């Protein structure tokens, strides 16, 4: 007898039907592996000054360094291997993007659920705050916070959390309001379950699907915003360079025709964002019940 597939198996099968999404997922997996195992696979530790030689500075892609290492993507002004710099930079970019998204998700989830479940004054205060914040562009809010706080990985993460939480709060509230009107919540209320249990065990799991989509898109947006802020010199510090900072460092040389210092970190940033967006796009279709037959 054939068993009915579980919901998760069905989702995976649905997801795998799009070859583009699978390609995106494979690319994303490669990028994650490169970031996690950077110290093992990078040809050089770009932040160990003993391994650098200024004489190897700004060599074009494919050149050999003084000690026999090949710079496949060229080297920067300090004689750093660009490829190794990208692997290490990916760590910072992904760390900032993922951590800030998860924290903002938690805050937005709590705020949105409270607004939807309690309604009334709680709802109007939270949603007014969300409205005010969303009426300002994200880059402006991040800029204000970083102008106030100064540079730093932790400060950049904080600024990105503050930028993002309102999106989640609004999405969660909208979903939770619809779910709250359904009969299973009414039934749980009739059983006189405590509010915390109703919210966490009944309401929360049913609000997750749209949230997963928003969160995936937001990771890409957070990585892009972090790169922008670091490019402007107000994001992460020079001691912990993300992809955005690597791009900034090569900008002056680019005008002199030495494009590779900025170009390849930019390509890495681009591939990361596109891969995440491809996955998010497919997730949106798979998790949307209206599009299912």
């Amino acid at each position, binding site marked *: 007898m054939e068993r009915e597939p579980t919901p998760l198996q069905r989702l995976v099968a649905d997801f795998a039907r799009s070859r583009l999404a699978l390609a995106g997922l494979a690319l994303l997996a490669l990028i994650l592996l490169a970031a996690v195992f950077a110290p093992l696979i990078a040809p050089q530790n770009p932040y160990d000054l003993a391994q650098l030689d200024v004489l190897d500075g700004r060599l074009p892609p494919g050149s050999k360094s003084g000690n026999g290492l090949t710079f496949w993507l060229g080297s920067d002004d300090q004689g750093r291997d660009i490829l190794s710099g990208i692997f290490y930079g990916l760590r910072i970019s992904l760390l900032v993007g993922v951590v800030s998204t998860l924290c903002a998700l938690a805050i937005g989830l709590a705020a949105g659920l409270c607004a939807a479940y309690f309604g009334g004054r709680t709802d109007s205060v939270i949603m007014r705050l969300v409205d005010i914040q969303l*009426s300002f562009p994200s880059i*402006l809010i991040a800029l204000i916070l970083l102008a*106030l*706080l100064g540079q730093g990985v932790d400060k950049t993460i904080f600024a990105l959390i503050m930028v993002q939480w309102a999106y989640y709060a609004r999405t969660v509230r909208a979903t939770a309001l619809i779910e709250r009107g359904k009969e299973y919540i009414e039934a749980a209320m009739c059983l006189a379950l405590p509010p915390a249990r109703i919210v966490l065990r009944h309401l929360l799991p049913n609000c997750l699907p749209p949230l997963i989509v928003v969160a995936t898109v937001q990771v890409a947006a957070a990585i892009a915003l972090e*790169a922008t802020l670091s490019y402007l010199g107000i994001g992460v510090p020079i001691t912990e360079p993300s992809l955005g900072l690597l791009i900034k460092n090569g900008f002056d040389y680019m005008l002199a025709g030495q494009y590779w210092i900025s170009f390849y970190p930019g390509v890495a940033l681009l591939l990361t964002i596109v891969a995440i967006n491809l996955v998010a796009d497919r997730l949106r279709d798979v998790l949307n019940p209206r599009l299912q037959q």
Partner: protein
Amino acid sequence: MAAFVIRRLLQSVLVLWLMSLLVFVGVYAIGNPVDILINPQADQADIARAIAALGLDQPLWQQYLTFLRQALLGDLGKSFAYNIPALQLILERMPATLELALAAAAVAVLLGIPLGLWAGLAPDSWAGKLIMSGSILGFSLPTFWVGLLLIMLFAVELGWLPSGGRGPTSLLLGIPVSFLSWEGIRHLILPATNLALFKLSLIIRLTQAGTREALLQDYVKFARAKGLSNARVVGVHVLKNILIPIVTVIGLEFGSVIAFAIVTESIFGWPGMGKLIIDSINVLDRPVIVAYLLIVVSLFILINLAVDIVYSLLDPRVRLGGATD
């Protein structure tokens, strides 16, 4: 209506006051400007004189009260770095930013509506698909990275356009502008294209979706049944109906064009407000930071208020937060 406007104005003043407090305390708590602005070789007496001249020896709350009183009189302090009033400095840079933002909006509209119409009329053609995939790229690529590519291609490799700066300006009603001379336009093309890219994608998608929807409506079928030419059906009947949401979005998004000008101006060395704020953050020129943030926040509050009011006038179905009952 009056009650709504008054309530929104009060709310705006509150937001503005909170911002001033937040910005002031935050900015004045970072680092010590004495280290940055005063020559380290100066002797103690010189340093003390400079601190007193800049008002940095007062307690923080007193600095804030002084700042608030003067802000209400339109005096937002003197730039540490330029030694001229911060407000004047920002107002001097504002025309450059506005010109760039308007040029970007023009590029987005003039390219976006025709491309969106094309993609909407022929969604299955290769051109339609190309336009739509291009618009996805425009959404997901970071602005600064596209800007670098533009410089690399058109300024460094091809050498067709300058890589940065504003070039010569000519006066129009006393305001310096670039678009009156060919050299000025050459400097404007790359930054305006860069800044327009995101909005261009947005307008393409809006127009495409609107066109596809409008083509299925009865009034379009009726117009075709009447034997009107294709150009007239699309140019008059379809376009007129899809323009309302597009105009709204352009209005709503103009503020964010000004905000994103920060990035474009920094890449292309365009001497506007955005480049000024980044330079000021880097040298901790606090009066300029505070003044910029307050001016931009006020600008946004005004834009949001105006959009809300205009929208309610255009579309009577929109209820203004219960103020109409």
